[in-house]
């Protein structure tokens, strides 16, 4: 299970403050804590900044790279901001994210190839968010076809079936899960399946419980990557337990014991 830590995001008030004050130590600390908690990669999102977001992205990437050397997921709706992040990134990078929309793919696929980055693709397109699993699979197929046409290796593609808040679109939680097995059969090698987990619990009072329940369900359906809060210890324990139950990791009595060496 590939875990991308979600905490370096300008949507969080403390991160917005750190960005505003260029408090590199606070960002570096957040990066280190997420990696220590088990994140394999870190998402970097400037959030809604008034000033030049490309410059903010560059600063964030540089600051995080000084603290850790894990891969970075460069997260922005704007291709120019993503390009700025990729330029600053020394190690492995992921683009977060394209969609199935022609315009997005045309902008981001070449960018991924230029920088040797992996690509996260949301299964939405010009028509908006699909209503069921079949419609998600249809967009996924279009994305995979485009990637193959462009010569982009499909095992560097992370398909996101779009997780919606249970409080707002309850029926969609199940549709996103149902889309996962279909995604895996689209091509060889199979694409990765990623979810932006925390969205499922937006606007609810039991956020952690809902997140970790959904994560276990998604893993059982073939999801092998997630953007989530690694500082949620219960969530990470469920992730490790599900890995063991799915025979992805060898069981031992101490499998939950924190040991830096195991990560």
């Amino acid at each position, binding site marked *: 299970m590939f875990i991308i830590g979600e905490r370096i995001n300008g949507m969080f008030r403390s991160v917005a403050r750190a960005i505003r004050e260029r408090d590199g130590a606070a960002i570096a600390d957040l990066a280190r804590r997420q990696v220590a908690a088990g994140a394999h990669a870190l998402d970097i999102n400037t959030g809604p900044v008034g000033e030049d977001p490309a410059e903010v992205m560059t600063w964030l990437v540089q600051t995080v790279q000084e603290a850790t050397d894990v891969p970075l997921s460069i997260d922005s709706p704007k291709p120019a901001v993503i390009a700025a992040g990729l330029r600053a990134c020394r190690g492995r990078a992921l683009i977060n994210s394209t969609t199935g929309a022609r315009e997005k793919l045309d902008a981001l696929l070449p960018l991924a190839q230029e920088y040797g980055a992996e690509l996260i693709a949301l299964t939405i397109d010009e028509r908006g968010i699909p209503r069921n699993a079949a419609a998600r699979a249809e967009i996924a197929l279009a994305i995979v076809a485009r990637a193959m046409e462009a010569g982009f290796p499909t095992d560097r593609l992370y398909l996101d079936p779009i997780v919606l808040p249970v409080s707002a679109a309850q029926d969609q939680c199940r549709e996103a899960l149902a889309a996962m097995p279909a995604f895996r059969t689209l091509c060889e090698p199979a694409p990765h399946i990623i979810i932006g987990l925390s969205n499922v619990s937006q606007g609810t009072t039991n956020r952690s419980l809902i997140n970790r329940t959904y994560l276990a369900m998604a893993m059982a359906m073939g999801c092998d990557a997630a953007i989530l809060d690694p500082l949620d210890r219960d969530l990470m324990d469920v992730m490790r337990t599900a890995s063991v139950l799915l025979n*992805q990791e*060898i069981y*031992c*009595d101490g499998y939950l014991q924190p040991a830096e060496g*195991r*990560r």
Partner: protein
Amino acid sequence: MSVELIRERWPGKVFTVTIGATPAEGGTRARALTIGGHTSLPFAGDAPSPHRPLVAMEVLDVVPPDWPAHLREPLADVLGRPAEWARKCVEDYGADLVCLRLASPHPDGQDAPPDAAVATVRAVLEAVPVPLVILGCGHADKDNEVWPRVTEATRGERCLIGMAVPENYKTLVVACLADGHNVLAEAPIDINIQKQLNILISEMGLPPDRIVLHPGTASLGYGLEYEYSIMERIRLAGLQGDKMLAQPLAAVIGSEAWKAKEARLAEEAMPAWGTAAERGPAWEAATAAAFLQAGADIVVLLHPAAVAAVRRVVAELAAVPAEA
């Protein structure tokens, strides 16, 4: 038409462990030896291993009385003299490592004091230039008396010392941490317990690249396939990224293979089985050859003829030439 070879790629990598230290590194060995570092299954050709498996020869401070004559015969002039035995292993038979088993402290045997064990270790260390593997007698309380003395006497030599077992690992780990040695961790034919033991040892502060795994003892006809499959699963888990199973593997074969009646029985007892002098070493060598295929990084052998055969096997299998 050209055929494209399919190479399997794995996300994980087996840790490298270095045994022995040169004078520049604070020891007295002619050179240090490194094992592990694999990024694919053994000898599969997907990715050549940076370090070939090592052949160690076992030297005992007390020879079991029931050893058959055809095992004693080639070593007759050195049995009971560990330093000379060790020297013969290196100079005459080309052993990469000497594996010294300190059996004499066992309370059911000689119940030798720790001082005697330390003297033996010192003598062997002086006799040979190669790195040492040191094994205890297997009696927990006695090992815990002997180990700290042995690790202190060999401080800086970066030996590989065992066996740390789930019931008794703390004293050895603390001693190895203090004196800069590697730990050989044993969990008999149980991958779950092997992983658990690794976690426990790591939590005491020993880095994962100072542990070598010993997933059990078995020989041809006596559990070989169980140990083989456990070694294979450990390697697969390590390659898949499980750092608590990504350590190199050791197999102590000689003493186990020579327990098999097929290796021991005298010729007159079973003429149909062929010459005893060949049968015993063959039993040992066949066991070792299997474990090499399963991923053993160190095989510990007894009979010189088995050593010669296994050295040939390693040379033929290894994608990289021997170090040095």
